[in-house]
């Protein structure tokens, strides 16, 4: 997704773009996640600024690409089951509002108006009309097509080509060299490996997530609904299983329940513990789901950096190398802003927002503050 967005905005900035991927389109994490475009789950700060810019860009892209990417500006509803959680949620909403987010408190007795099948007895909630969704694989494929970039699927990058002056002049692949004066690392959860090919360190690590997909249903879940604990899970540093789910209906009919967060390396094997936790959370929010069948489950690996912020922008250690990776559980949502910022950097224009928090070299200067080693 990140690569597709970079390709689109770079092409629109007048550059000739080539997209190199060892697999097919959406073959990485993008094809194994969900497409929530959320502002609601973010604390005020650099990531929220990126998300707000992205939300605007997504709305514009949706106008162009129409239904092809299954964009739905359906809004999010965060609910709290107990008064304590509700107070924390309202407090977060107030801070988000001052950062530019639309966050509307919903009293307990108004919740059924928004979600008639929600479990009774909730303490209250907050409605976020800016939350939206896309179908990630379609979004990546259509952004790539719209970019007009030349695709090199099935090409694995095995080296970053650098001249005597240290400047990047292309990449080496298993099927030949591809020359370019600038290289963007949008290798997702493999972004650290790609950086290593250029001789630098970028500690991108996998955070596994499972998603449950139900049988197709008539629409009963109208928004993206999740419990207030979700925000704590997203920001958590814990390696253990976190599983407060987001429940949402899709255009195609199935309800998606996702996703768990767990740091277990690249282990794709089924975790019944994870799907149990997802199912229990979803049934807690929507009791009617108890009888509904899960058809499948799948796992993906979020690319995360120790401070939970992506790496976006030029790498001063390797002139000509740019990074657009490490978006963790928000890479679909944050993709357009990332692409736009990269295009600005490639063409020497001023960025829309301050790139300092996303500096790719920031982990070198913080001296061993990585959380864990790759």
């Amino acid at each position, binding site marked *: 997704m990140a690569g597709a967005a970079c390709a689109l905005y770079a092409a629109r900035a007048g550059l000739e773009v080539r997209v190199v991927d060892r697999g097919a*389109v959406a073959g990485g994490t993008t*094809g194994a996640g969900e497409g929530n475009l959320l502002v609601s789950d973010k604390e005020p700060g650099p990531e929220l600024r990126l998300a707000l810019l992205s939300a605007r860009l997504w709305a514009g892209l949706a106008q162009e690409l129409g239904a092809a990417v299954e964009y739905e500006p359906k809004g999010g509803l965060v609910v709290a089951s107990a008064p304590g959680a509700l107070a924390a949620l309202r407090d977060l909403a107030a801070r988000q509002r001052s950062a530019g987010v639309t966050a509307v408190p919903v009293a307990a007795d108004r919740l059924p108006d928004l979600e008639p099948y929600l479990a009774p007895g909730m303490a209250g909630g907050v409605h976020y009309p800016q939350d939206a969704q896309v179908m990630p694989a379609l979004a990546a494929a259509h952004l790539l*097509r719209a970019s007009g970039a030349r695709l090199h699927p099935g090409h694995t990058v095995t080296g970053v080509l650098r001249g005597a002056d240290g400047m990047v002049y292309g990449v080496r692949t298993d099927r030949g060299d591809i020359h370019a004066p600038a290289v963007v690392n949008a290798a997702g959860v493999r972004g650290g490996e790609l950086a290593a090919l250029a001789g630098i360190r970028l500690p991108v690590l996998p955070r596994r997530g499972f998603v449950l997909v139900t049988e197709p249903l008539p629409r009963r879940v109208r928004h993206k609904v999740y419990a207030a604990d979700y925000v704590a899970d997203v920001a958590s540093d814990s390696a253990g299983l976190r599983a407060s789910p987001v429940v949402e209906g899709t255009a*195609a009919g199935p309800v998606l329940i996702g996703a768990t967060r767990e740091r277990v390396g690249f282990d794709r*094997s*089924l975790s*019944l513990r994870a799907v149990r936790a*997802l199912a229990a959370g979803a049934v807690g929010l929507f009791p009617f789901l108890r*009888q509904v069948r899960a*058809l499948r489950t799948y796992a993906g690996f979020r690319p995360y950096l120790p401070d939970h912020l992506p790496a976006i922008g030029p790498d001063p250690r390797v002139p000509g190398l740019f990074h657009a990776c490490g978006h963790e559980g928000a890479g679909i949502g944050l993709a357009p802003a990332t692409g736009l910022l990269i295009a600005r950097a490639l063409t020497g224009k001023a960025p829309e927002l301050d790139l300092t928090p996303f500096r790719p070299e920031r982990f070198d200067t913080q001296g061993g503050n990585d959380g864990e080693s790759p």
Partner: protein
Amino acid sequence: MTERPRLAVVGAGPAGLAAALTAAARGVRVLLVDAADQAGGQFYRQPAAGLGARRPHAPHHRWRTWERLRTGLERHRAAGRITHLTDHHVWCVAGESGSGGFTVYALRGPGQEEGVTVRADAVLLATGGYERVLPFPGWTLPGVVTAGGAQAMLKGQLVLPGRTAVVAGTGPLLLPVATGLAAAGAQVAALVESAGPAALSRRLPALAAQPGTLAEGAGYAARLLRHGVRVLPRHTVLAAHGTERLEAVTVAALDRTGRPRPGTARRVRCDTLAVGHGLLPHTDLAETLGCALSGTAVRVDAEQRTDVPGVWAAGEATGVGGATLALAEGRIAGQSAAARLYGTAPDPRRWAAADRTRARARAFAAALDSVYAPPAGWAERLPDETVVCRCEEVTAGRVCEAVGTLGAGDARTVKLLTRAGMGWCQGRMCGPAVAGLTGCPLDPGRRPFARPVPLGVLAGLPDTE
């Protein structure tokens, strides 16, 4: 209490039954878990008890083998050595971290709504196969059934799917299906097989090594003749026609390269089309356990062990080859599992006869495999508007668009971009067609849930791995 080792056998077809009886005879406590309400699997499928059929074995041959298996099962059940869990649909088998044991997760009850878990020290997967059906215009009309579906209706419910039938596709199963229908009183207008008759005779050396099956084949041919069934080798069904339901099919001859010969198309009236293009192994449970596959089948060694310790596999799940092969593999797997559960290395001499049968049957299956093939170029001839994935109503045209303009080069990407294979059957039906249209080999795919599972059952699982 001194506990005997417990072996869970999933599937009570020929392979699972043979394995269960063999292991039980060697002192293992067997849990035989099967989705059907009676033992027998595909091959020895029994009429539902409630039908009160007077001669339930009428549509069967090899009746004696079945009677031995059935009385054996009864004896072991009565002695408490085998517990037969009927009507249990297994959705997952998981290894327990630490103990080395396994948990079998099943759904029970008429709506498959009740969760049941069973523990065992080892598992043996004998889940059989399912039918491959390739799409063609009109294949979604009511009246078009799978060859196995027609057979199951005959065997299980003693009903005829229709009055005038055409049996079409490719593979050795078309013969018994056509004779079965004819014997039950249907008029079989034609048996349309895309393989040619000459291809069969060129493989005669391999076939001759399998006298039983050859005789069986000859027996079918004689019976077809007796019922006046027209056999059309090197022919294919190009399309099925009808408004509300099936009324006729268009049949055409194929040339030596497998393409329809111009000017040979003709219409055949019928109200039933039984169509099949061979079988594919069920690999879901094995794949989720982490067992390596080879091609589309579970990979096993000479003892029928998978590469995951404690997991055996036998029968159609390890490669399609008929009931004789399934029985032989089941016996070997049962011997091996029993010995290893008691901590001893099995003695292959105990299964020397089964081993010979297995080798012969596998050679025969390989020979058949190279003979029976869908007509060349079937995927290119598929019109854009033909539905390929029935669950999600995805047409051939949309699949080709994903491949052509969106850059999908494999079945997984096609699925992501078109939803083909995301529906109720999880791509079991459309997988071969999507692979054909994408131009890549069939990938068995991952289905962590072998059956759809109610979220309430998932939520009620114990909070451990």
